[in-house]
């Protein structure tokens, strides 16, 4: 069943187009059907990889190096499932909210495009095609941010776009140089030829720099924060949970399949330093953010750091750890954004100091926040624990004590910022201070996402086996 | 060099001369109206000579006709854009230059 990989891209794409042309009611139905069918396609790809190992799907029937090959391997399959779980639950959240049917009908083509772009990105076997998928993800994400209701939405969206564009174009310049040197675009051909020549080194430096900018790695981390805090909860969940990981996944592919060892060993320490900066800077800033969403946004900055730690460590276990962090943080951060959205809607604000004593009034969102929080601070048995444990163990095994220490400190800081939120929520409510709470909905998808983050940690073997079922890791 | 080549060269030189005159006018004339005058009149004539010179050389009626169409299209668009620029300037209150 090699067709599933094609369906995983064409269904959300077609669904997005149909939903864009349909009326309000019809577009919600189309979006729901497309979400369900895309999830089935992702499961189909994963089942095929688990049973028969990795496979290739040449688009148009043209084999590489001439054509573009889509690849189903362990990495692709796990990421397709992660995207399906997160995007699917976020979609369920968006579609269940009947009070905002019009807004939902307007945004559902955009989140279907985002979904299609991410699916296409994780299976793409062509470095130029990766550029197109990155741009599709970016523009759909910009649309989602621009669709936000606050007065700041255009500014947040424009700023997001104007930082994402140079990132993609630096990457594209690298692609141009590599094509000029080797005359091919597929990782298999390139991996066999790329060496330490001047064009190759320049190309790899440009691609790495562009993707780090796109991934918002420290010190260029500030630009998505505005978008994360200003976008609607649905957009924030998709952006921080999934789109923010896209550039990292592209870099992982390049690192594994294209870059030669000389380049990776030289660039590893640089990326490690930036990753350490991201972990410490992001976690520290998350500690004193006045608004709930900003806490989660800076927590995302810190988690980008954990992902990039792999480049400094370089072992297979470290990669498994980093990809586990991708999965766990995708679910956890999406859960936290949706929970925050539910809280903010109930209260009319999301200021941390205003949360005092509200845990009992809004049990479901706060429970989701707490569960997702345990994953963010890497408490066993959450999935965040598995990922970070694999990373820290790899750091000790390879003698990178400093990086291990940074990650442990990051975990402590995460515990501190999560407890700061929860402590306030569980404090007794000050007497005589009335709190107006409007009926809140939408905590359920957040809870489901938090449970996904926990469940991944209860049975890490399943995901790790699938990850290794493919060729790459 | 045949007679045809000579005629073509003469036409191309004439075209270049008109373009040069138009450009000098663009740089030296005092206000927007005068510059428009230099640009549209001289350059359109220059293009006409250039097109005629090239048409003699191509030796293919279809290509020569295409060159002619190019000239006609440029004439239409430049005359209208010239009018637009002039009217916009007039509306914005730009007074035509007079010898002081």
């Amino acid at each position: 069943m090699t067709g599933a990989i094609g369906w995983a891209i064409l269904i959300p794409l077609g669904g997005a187009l149909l939903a864009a042309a349909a009326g309000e009611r019809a577009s919600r139905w189309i979006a729901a059907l497309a979400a369900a069918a895309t999830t089935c396609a992702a499961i189909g790809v994963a089942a095929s990889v688990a049973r028969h190992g990795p496979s290739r799907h040449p688009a148009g029937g043209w084999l590489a190096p001439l054509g573009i090959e889509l690849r189903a391997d362990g990495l692709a399959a796990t990421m397709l499932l992660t995207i399906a779980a997160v995007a699917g639950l976020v979609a369920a959240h968006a579609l269940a909210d009947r009070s905002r049917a019009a807004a939902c009908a307007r945004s559902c083509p955009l989140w279907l495009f985002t979904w299609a772009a991410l699916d296409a990105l994780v299976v793409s076997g062509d470095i130029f095609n990766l550029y197109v998928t990155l741009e599709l993800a970016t523009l759909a994400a910009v649309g989602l941010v621009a669709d936000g209701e606050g007065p700041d939405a255009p500014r947040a969206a424009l700023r997001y776009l104007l930082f994402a564009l140079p990132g993609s174009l630096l990457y594209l310049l690298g692609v141009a140089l590599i094509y000029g040197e080797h005359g091919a675009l597929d990782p298999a051909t390139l991996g066999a030829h790329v060496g330490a020549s001047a064009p190759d080194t320049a190309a790899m430096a440009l691609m790495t720099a562009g993707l780090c900018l796109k991934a918002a790695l420290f010190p260029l981390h500030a630009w998505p924060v505005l978008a994360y805090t200003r976008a609607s909860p649905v957009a924030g969940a998709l952006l921080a949970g999934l789109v923010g990981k896209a550039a990292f996944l592209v870099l992982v592919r390049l690192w594994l399949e294209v870059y030669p060892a000389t380049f990776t060993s030289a660039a590893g320490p640089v990326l490690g330093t930036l990753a350490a900066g991201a972990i410490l800077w992001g976690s520290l800033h998350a500690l004193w953010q006045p608004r709930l969403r900003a806490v989660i946004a800076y927590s995302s900055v810190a988690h980008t750091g954990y992902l990039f730690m792999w480049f400094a460590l370089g072992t297979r276990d470290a990669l498994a750890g980093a990809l586990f962090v991708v999965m766990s943080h995708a679910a956890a951060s999406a859960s936290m954004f949706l929970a925050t959205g539910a809280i903010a809607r109930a209260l009319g604000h999301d200021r941390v100091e205003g949360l005092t004593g509200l845990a009992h009034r809004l049990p479901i969102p706060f429970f989701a926040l707490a569960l997702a929080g345990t994953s963010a601070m890497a408490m066993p048995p959450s999935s965040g624990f598995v990922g970070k444990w694999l990373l820290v163990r790899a750091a000790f095994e390879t003698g990178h004590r400093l990086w291990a220490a940074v990650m442990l400190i990051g975990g402590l800081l995460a515990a501190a910022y999560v407890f700061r939120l929860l402590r306030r929520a569980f404090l007794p409510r000050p007497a005589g201070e009335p709190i107006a709470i409007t009926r809140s909905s939408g905590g359920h998808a957040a809870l489901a996402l938090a449970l996904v983050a926990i469940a991944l940690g209860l049975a890490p073997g399943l995901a790790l086996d699938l990850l290794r079922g493919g060729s790459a890791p | 060099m045949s007679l045809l080549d000579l005629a073509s060269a003469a036409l191309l030189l004439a075209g270049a001369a008109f373009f040069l005159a138009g450009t000098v006018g663009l740089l030296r004339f005092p206000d927007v109206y005068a510059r428009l005058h230099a640009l549209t009149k001289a350059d359109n004539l220059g293009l006409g000579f250039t097109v005629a010179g090239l048409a003699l050389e191509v030796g293919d009626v279809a290509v020569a006709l295409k060159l002619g169409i190019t000239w006609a299209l440029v004439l239409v668009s430049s005359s209208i854009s010239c009018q637009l620029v002039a009217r916009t300037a007039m509306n914005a209150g730009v007074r035509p230059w007079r010898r002081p």
Partner: protein
Amino acid sequence: MTALDVLLAGALPVLAWRALATDDLHEAVVFFIALGLVAALAWARLDAPDIALVEAAVGAGVTGSLFVTTLRARGLRPPASPAPRRARIALAVLTIASALGIGAALAALPAEPPGLGELVRASLPETGVQHTVTAVLLNVRGYDTLLEMAVLVAAVLAVLARAPSPSARPAARPAAPDDDPARPLIAVLARLLVPGIILVAGYLLWRGAFAPGGAFQAAAVLAGGGILAILAGRRAPDPHARAVRRGLVFGPGAFVLIAAVPLIAGRHVLEYPEGWAKVLIVAVEVALTFSIALTLVLFFPASGEKGT
């Protein structure tokens, strides 16, 4: 290498610098448009007629008028202060160093390079078209083009995300104020040019199968005609109207459908059945031309948005 090449290649960075460094935004936009036209000449010199056509129509034409429209809609605003001096110097040093590095890398590229050109020409008989660029765009790397169409639709949805709906607009308002003195002249121009533009677009589309030309070139020309007609007073398509939405997704939708049918038959994405490649490519191109042109027209702000 001729003097013309040196002139063109030298003019591009100068125009780029003028477009980006001048204080006057109007001037910046004019330089930007000029750069697009010079770039079109550069493409022609580099034997890239397909790109020259698109650049002239889109790079200078559509994008340029979008900048002009935006400048008009935003009105004059106080100039923004640039980045702090120290940051500018650091960034200047960094960019100059990387430019030198990239330049050195380019100089080190092999003069007689490996490329996919030979492979494309060898496979041309199987692609169903005779023009190599069209073969790559719509068959060999058609999957890229499919995603590219998704980018276009996603962008127009982002543009329309919170655009004012027609009900919010003052009723029965014409597309532009009637006191616009330019209107009658543009109407004349439109009457003269639009029929020719439609003809040229059809010609470019048909030609794409065997020579430079194709859906995007045709659509760019068609969109130019559409914009001219709107400037001349024809009503702009309402992005919220059902029919316009359908027209927007018609081309990409047909493309997705053609990509999906082979999957049902157990083949690969976008794998044209034997002997059908030419027919399907032409069908996709016709559908795409229409939708791309509509998309480019919709990138222009509706009248209700003007002056907000």
